[in-house]
């Protein structure tokens, strides 16, 4: 999985550079996110702008990652693309996660 920390000021912005978060990479995704989130002091924004597809395994992995957030942390999503948004809507996970239009909007808003 290609995940990078893009900035670490108002929030830790983690960006995904993979087109798919699915059954093929769900476990690696969880493991990598765990490392990238461990020492984040507060808000964590996950930029999914390059992600084109998330299947049920990917969604389950995102829920697992959401649960990894510590007491002083948040795990919020940004820049969901078409088919990814659809999966969140179908499963009503768009009511569970804080989802921002993009990272700029996410950074401007109050913590979820």
């Amino acid at each position: 999985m290609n995940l990078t920390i893009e900035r670490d000021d108002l929030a830790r912005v983690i960006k995904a550079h993979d087109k798919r978060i699915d059954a093929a990479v769900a476990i690696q995704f969880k493991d990598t996110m765990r490392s990238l989130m461990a020492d984040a002091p507060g808000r964590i924004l996950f930029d999914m702008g390059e992600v084109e597809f998330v299947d049920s395994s990917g969604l389950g992995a995102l829920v697992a990652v959401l649960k990894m957030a510590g007491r002083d942390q948040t795990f919020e999503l940004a820049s969901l693309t078409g088919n990814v948004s659809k999966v969140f809507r179908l499963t009503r996970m768009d009511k569970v996660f804080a989802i921002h239009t993009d990272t700029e909007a996410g950074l401007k808003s109050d913590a979820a």
Partner: protein
Amino acid sequence: MIAVTRAEVNLVIDGAEAAVRDALGILIPAARDLGLGEDQCGSLEILLAEVLNNIVEHAYRNRPGRIEVSMARDGKDLRLRLVDHGREMPESRLPDKPTLDYGPEMAALPEGGFGWFMIHDLAQDLSYRRHANCNELRFKVPV
């Protein structure tokens, strides 16, 4: 002016989950050629990803196998049939549509059940039968 009305794709998969990505790369364009609209192609990709992952992981237990996919245009619908030669579905029936109930407790959020929820949500006339040592799954989607 010609119309393509049927596509048959025989997939020989090596058992890895990544094979599903390759299969979608063939099947979605084939569905598009049969007249499936863009938004519907997105829904079909979601649906086929779940169905194919189930075949790879459960029917074939991540071993190599063949999946025969037929797609036929039927008026305003696209009818699909998937046949694999793997293990029978538990109790030889489709799982019921899960209820996804999200309470306020984050720690209690489910991490599974989404697949069959979406399959039931997106597929119409979904049916399964075990026949001659094969699994046959049928469903249709609107074009």
